[in-house]
């Protein structure tokens, strides 16, 4: 049996150059650095590798980083959906301003965000001075890490959910109402399933950003070993001590974790989208 050639006669030109460029670009920008990471890690022996990545201080940092990133992405999924809903469904004065505001965490240099957040949440800051007397310490605790990650992750959810929400026909909600569904049933059974793939994408992006975030977190985290130290900070610390192999070893583990998380989200997404493709 003859195999079909990849390039069939098509009206879209430039299959060769575009595919070639895509492969080259991805190799150069993504694959090459990542393989360098693995190669560098491989200079460690297996026991050395385990000792580095499973050190108590490192394990604690995984927990803080991934835990806070998951929580932040979860909160963003909820409130990002809400923001997107308001932006799409209601016409209110200053809507365009709110819309622009959503993108600010994207644009702000992370260090600026970090310094601002820590000054607001510090004991003498605007919010910190209200919260701390009530026993809620945000700055220099894991809670602060969570706050920073929430801040930088919000646009991801809003910007992925918004277009999908805009495309949803109002008719399906009317149809649900005619069939006797109340608002909650309509949301839960008609709207949410339609939004879920986009919501999961937003969640995954926000999570990935949170895990990789450095600049805005280190100012507010307090960076206490075993308590509020994030993994990227540990990597920097190792680098500063010229322990390149150790740094890349931790990075490799992070990469693996992140990859697994994203894979899971992707599978969930595929499942929630099972109706569309067929």
């Amino acid at each position: 049996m003859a195999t079909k050639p990849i390039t069939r006669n098509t009206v879209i030109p430039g299959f060769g150059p575009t595919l070639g460029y895509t492969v080259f670009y991805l190799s150069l920008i993504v694959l090459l650095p990542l393989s360098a990471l693995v190669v560098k890690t491989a200079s460690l022996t297996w026991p050395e590798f385990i000792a580095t990545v499973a050190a108590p201080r490192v394990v604690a940092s995984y927990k803080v980083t991934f835990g806070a990133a998951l929580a932040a992405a979860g909160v963003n999924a909820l409130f990002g959906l809400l923001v997107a809903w308001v932006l799409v469904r209601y016409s209110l004065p200053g809507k365009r301003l709110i819309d622009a505001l959503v993108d600010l965490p994207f644009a702000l240099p992370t260090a600026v965000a970090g310094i601002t957040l820590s000054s607001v949440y510090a004991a003498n800051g605007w919010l910190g001075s209200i919260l701390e007397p009530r026993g809620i310490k945000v700055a220099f605790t894991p809670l602060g890490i969570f706050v920073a990650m929430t801040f930088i992750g919000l646009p991801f959810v809003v910007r992925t959910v918004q277009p999908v929400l805009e495309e949803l026909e109002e008719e399906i909600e009317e149809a649900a109402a005619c069939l006797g569904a109340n608002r909650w049933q309509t949301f839960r059974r008609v709207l949410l399933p339609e939004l879920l793939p986009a919501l999961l994408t937003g969640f995954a992006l926000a999570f990935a950003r949170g895990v990789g975030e450095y600049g805005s977190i280190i100012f507010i985290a307090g960076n206490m070993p075993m308590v509020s130290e994030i993994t990227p900070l540990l990597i920097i610390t190792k680098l500063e001590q010229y322990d390149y192999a150790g740094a890349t070893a931790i990075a490799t583990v992070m990469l693996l974790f992140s990859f697994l998380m994203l894979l899971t989200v992707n599978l969930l997404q595929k499942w929630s989208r099972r109706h569309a493709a067929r």
Partner: protein
Amino acid sequence: MSIEIVSVNKQFGSFTALNDVNLTVPSGELTALLGPSGSGKTTLLRIIAGLETPDAGSIRFDGEETTDRHVRERQVGFVFQHYALFRHMTVEENVAFGLTVKPRKERPSKKEVRERVHELLRLVQLEGLADRFPSQLSGGQRQRVALARALAVEPKVLLLDEPFGALDAKVRVELRRWLRRLHDEIHVTSVFVTHDQEEALEVADRIVVMNKGRIEQVGTPAEVYDQPANPFVFDFLGSVNLFHCRSEQGQARAAAPELSMGYVRSHDIEVERRQSDGAVEAEVRHIQAVGPAVRVELLVRGTGKTVEAELSRDGAERLALGLGETVYARPRKMQTFVADYQI
């Protein structure tokens, strides 16, 4: 269940969608709201459903005031032009939706739901497709799923908004005949909106002709077609030729003096070779065979007006018309209205 619409008004900004509309839809009938776009027919349907609230006036179901009742509680089945199916649900889940959102006390058991759904799918002839998703169905199938979904909750009233509007011509004709048969089986009071006069004439028990937010005429298909109340209805329900005429006790004569306007359908124009009483002399300008009929465009001598006649194939062959030939056109049947309406 009968529906009464009493002096309903609806305004969208400066646009008057409905202007003092009064209508009674008798129980068990299939009524068509027919009109051009912007005539308010869809707005009226949505007000009956409760998807829109009237600015003034009231809606009564079986004499009971329903105007302020929420769409959820009206027990209406609504079928949308673009189906509005739930994409993430299978056909079965779509049809079952109305049953599964009922309050726990009234909700039928899973088994009962299944049985009811399959019974409905049998009714709409989609039995084998219960596990498909809407994206795997054709337009006609989707609309039948939408209909089954609407019928699942046993609505007192079935409302259809241009239900065949998004389908291609052949499927449209099939589906509307099928809808007619279905209605004869289940007899639920139904109102459907259409801009297609053929559809309304073929399917409905009664036709409500609407224009610019008002009702122009209500009647059976035969009534509105044969005895249109005014020039608009005449024009909207079929082809029109205008003759200036003098009306003499029903004896219409095509002539020059402008006393009133004579309205004649294309198929009511006789084309002859010989001059006869009431006929006008005309020149054949264009001949076009359209399916079973032949359309002939005639230029009336002396007036510069064109008249369109529709002949049967046989009739056209017998006449053996040629372009530029002189013939005589005689209206077989004419309706006169005072000349205040311009087409």
